[in-house]
């Protein structure tokens, strides 16, 4: 039984491949076979064309920082050990944006437009979360 106290995603049928991927060190992005849209977050219906013919592509794992913030105060107790937290919103070359934490760097090292790459951290038996670090 994990003693991890922070929020963890609930695995749903249509997001299962994403979490199976992260466990294997792969960043998988949902792809619509009908209209070719890449979709994030994973869901049952394509938000572009409503098709349910959805598959998965392997992302490069690279991204650039669109914007970020550095949290110093005002988190729940269980996140205090992580302060300061670098929350970033990153652009993937696959045409999607996702939220993440930038890790293995200091706040002063971060800038908009900088290149980052995915790094996986195993949290529990079921969940491996993707984070990003400077290239």
């Amino acid at each position, binding site marked *: 039984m994990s003693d991890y106290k922070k*929020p963890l*995603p609930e695995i749903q049928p249509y*997001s299962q491949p994403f979490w199976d991927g992260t466990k294997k060190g792969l960043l998988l992005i949902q792809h619509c076979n009908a209209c070719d849209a890449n979709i994030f977050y994973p869901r049952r219906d394509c938000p572009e064309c409503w098709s349910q013919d959805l598959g998965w592509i392997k992302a490069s794992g690279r991204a650039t920082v669109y914007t970020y913030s550095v*949290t110093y105060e*005002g988190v729940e*107790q269980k996140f205090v050990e992580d302060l300061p937290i670098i*929350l970033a919103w990153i652009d993937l070359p696959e045409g999607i944006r996702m939220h993440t934490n930038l890790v293995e760097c200091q706040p002063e090292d971060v800038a908009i437009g900088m290149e980052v790459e995915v790094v996986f951290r195993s949290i529990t038996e079921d969940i491996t979360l993707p984070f990003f670090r400077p290239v």
Partner: protein
Amino acid sequence: MDLSNVAIVGSFETDLGVVTDRGPMALGVQATLGAIADAGLQASAIDGLITCNSLVTPVMYHAEATAEYAGLTPGHCLSVGTGGGTTYTALRYAAAAIQTGLATTVVVSMADSMRSFMTRDRAMAVQSSSGHPLFEQPYGPTVPAYYALIARAHMDTYGTTEAQFAEAMVSSRAWAHLNPTAQYRERVTVDDVLASKPIADPLKLLDCSIVSDGGAAVVLTTLERARDLPHAPIVLKGYGEGHHYEHISQAKDLTKSAAADSGKAALAGAGIEPADIQLAQLYDCFSPALLIQLEDLGFCEKGTGGEFLASGATRPGGNLPVNTHGGMLSHCHPGNPGAIFGLTEAIRQYRGEAKERQLAHLEHTLLHAQGGIMSSHATVVLGRAN
């Protein structure tokens, strides 16, 4: 649709700020009964009650529970939940209920007690729960951190500075200094804001709204009935909403919001332009939200919100008074009801009861609020009845 056959006829604010002797439901009932009395009506005249659920002590059927507590038996009850935008969405539903014959006289009431009836850790959990549960919350987001993402994107795109964001609190406190009911009334300078402690860089403590207890309510009825009541009726001239996303990670662009849609619709409904607005009561949960609303609602060009704030236009004596009560940055921010004090202050201004804050000329007021993280927007234009 012409909204001007619906009038606001009653308005009441509870004790505000730090209120420890009663919780959200008792405050909400105080607001409800106060507004009915202010309208010169009896409880029996109320056939509609619209409320906003409490974050501190949520209940399953909030409007019904409020009616029960107050001894009201309205024919129509509705709890609305559009976050910070609830006040103005509820106002429109009240007008719709009156216009469609669902009810004739409706109370819109809301209150909460984030300051005194919720632990700090619980408050942090509630606010971070606005993040997407699967793909945002695991990363420890906070609401200030989300608005900090927006602030930094605006700085990067338009060259907006931290000193310009700081002007939001300078303006807010200049008004709050004139308002005895405001929770924080000390004037501040840009340097004070810049020197306040970092919360979520680039935002500091004084870029953030306050945490309060309090509530308020208004009463709406047909303009025809309003003519027989004590206060000069204030009418709804226009209304609009805009919804581009719910979770901020799904936004297409952080520097433009659906306020542009809601504002355009509300102004078109009223048949006026931004230049025709004498008072803007905006949603100042964080300084970047205020700055971007000023742009998206058409009060200044996109990218110039920082210069507009720094010009002093929004302060006492400025060309566009904003949040003359002090807003959520200084006056009262109990949770989702925060925007209702923008409405009750506007009513006070129309009635000529705003004392030192009184505007010399007031025809059109624009009220704006948003839920989520600049997600769901609602705009109202108010005016005097002809």
